[in-house]
């Protein structure tokens, strides 16, 4: 299917916070109470519409364990958006946000849009991090913030789309040189071509296995 833009996302955060479940809910609209743990990096994609333009999201879902950070780092470069996820029922996953953010800031491009997600908000009775704390952290670090639930699908769609809308706005504002793929943005049909002029043209639309 053809797109005006393709945005690359990366999902990061501690192990077991629900990164893969958020992705599954977004791409397949279903929830797996117990999801296989992610080894290395996995991948998902979906089309959305922003400003009447078809936009393809290509999403890299990473492993949460500290040991895998070296692998995760190679995916920051070339990502336009990041979803930084913690689990509102596990305090330590919130405490580790600063270290995740430091990694992202160090290895991603400076204009990467970061969405902070407090996942599992359906488990209000086990809440260990208040909404205000999440909001405050986001405010202090210039992130967008939402609480969401991969289980009930609450705010899942919104989180992915709001991130895309922010990236789209940055393109409109001329923040990116969209011809430069290291920003994690590819131009398809109907997007604003970069200086080199709609460079991937038909090749990015075609039937290649990875489009």
């Amino acid at each position, binding site marked *: 299917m053809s797109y005006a833009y393709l945005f690359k996302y990366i999902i990061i955060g501690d192990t077991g916070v629900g990164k893969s479940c958020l992705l599954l809910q977004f791409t397949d609209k279903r929830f797996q109470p117990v999801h*296989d743990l992610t080894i290395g990096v996995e991948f998902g994609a979906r089309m959305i519409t922003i400003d009447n333009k078809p936009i393809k999201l290509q999403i890299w879902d990473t492993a949460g364990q500290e040991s895998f950070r070296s*692998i995760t780092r190679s995916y920051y470069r070339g990502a336009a958006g990041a979803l930084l996820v913690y689990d509102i029922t596990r305090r*330590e996953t919130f405490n580790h946000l600063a270290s995740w953010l430091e990694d992202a800031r160090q290895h991603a491009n400076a204009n990467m849009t970061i969405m902070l997600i407090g996942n599992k908000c359906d488990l209000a009775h086990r809440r260990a991090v208040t909404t205000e704390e999440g909001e405050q952290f986001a405010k202090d670090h210039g992130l967008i913030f939402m609480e969401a639930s991969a289980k009930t699908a609450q705010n899942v769609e919104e989180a992915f789309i709001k991130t895309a809308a922010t990236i789209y706005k940055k393109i409109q504002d001329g923040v990116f040189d969209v011809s430069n793929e290291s920003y994690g943005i590819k131009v398809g049909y109907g997007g604003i071509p970069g200086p080199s002029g709609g460079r991937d043209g038909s090749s990015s639309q075609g039937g290649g296995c990875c489009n």
Partner: protein
Amino acid sequence: MVGWEAIAGMFGKNAGTEDLEAFYPVRPECKADIPKTRFRPRAGKTLSARRWHAAFSEDGHLDIAKVLRRIQRGGIHPSIKGLVWEFLLGCFDPNSSFEDRNQLRQQRRERYGMWKTECQNMVPVIGSGKFITTPIITDDGQPIEDGGWHVTSAVADKKVAQWMLSLHQIGLDVVRTDRALTFYENETNQAKLWDVLAIYSWVDDDIGYVQGMNDICSPMVILLENEADAFWCFERAMRKLRENFRCSTNSIGVQSQLSTLSQVIRTVDPKLHQHLEDLDGGEYLFAFRMLMVLFRREFSFIDALYLWEIGSR
């Protein structure tokens, strides 16, 4: 009226499947989520219980060459996998006698028991049939009170702290390991996997616990009934695999295998190599999981075991 089962039975179509399902039952609600099993035990090809027992001399020497030839042709029948795996993994020397092996097994069980006690003294939940999924100490070694199972004073020793911090991580992974198998619906079985991984990461503190080790360990825990025997099978497997799990700030051990893979592909299929290079910069990270957990996720449980069997030695 003739039932569908009877018709299927007449054609013998499902005979193999039913046989295997009985050995490693899958939760009905998970059937759609897992790859289809292609392995079928085949008469005359698969190593059967009868052939296995016939391969031993009177005092217990094993004709390993004969056994390996058969395994390579058709894998191992599920009824004897655990027994055969102990030899394939090198726990026992085929030239030893029954007597030797009994002694060795006894010694190993005792050694495992000692390590387990050592761990239990630090964290009493080990060996209790339960396990943890929440941290018991903070990142800087302060105890976290919540169950009464846990640590009571600050942990100063770096090795101990590192290990304790991995325990809830192991727990979080255990509940997600082979969740499609009925075996892990049982908390005692989950705790068995947790114990083995927890004790291994204590003993091999140089590597510790890294995600993916759960996928390697799980078959041993299922095939070997005795926990200590399962541990030693896992320990043997890790002798070959542990470098894959060695993590530094800049890399993970398995990446050296990825670069070998890249060299192989570049030689045998330069065009494919070029394509892969264009896609992910030639790091071959798409194969990361395949090599890290030896195709456990690409194939069904039974098929992965079959692959390991024909790939052994």
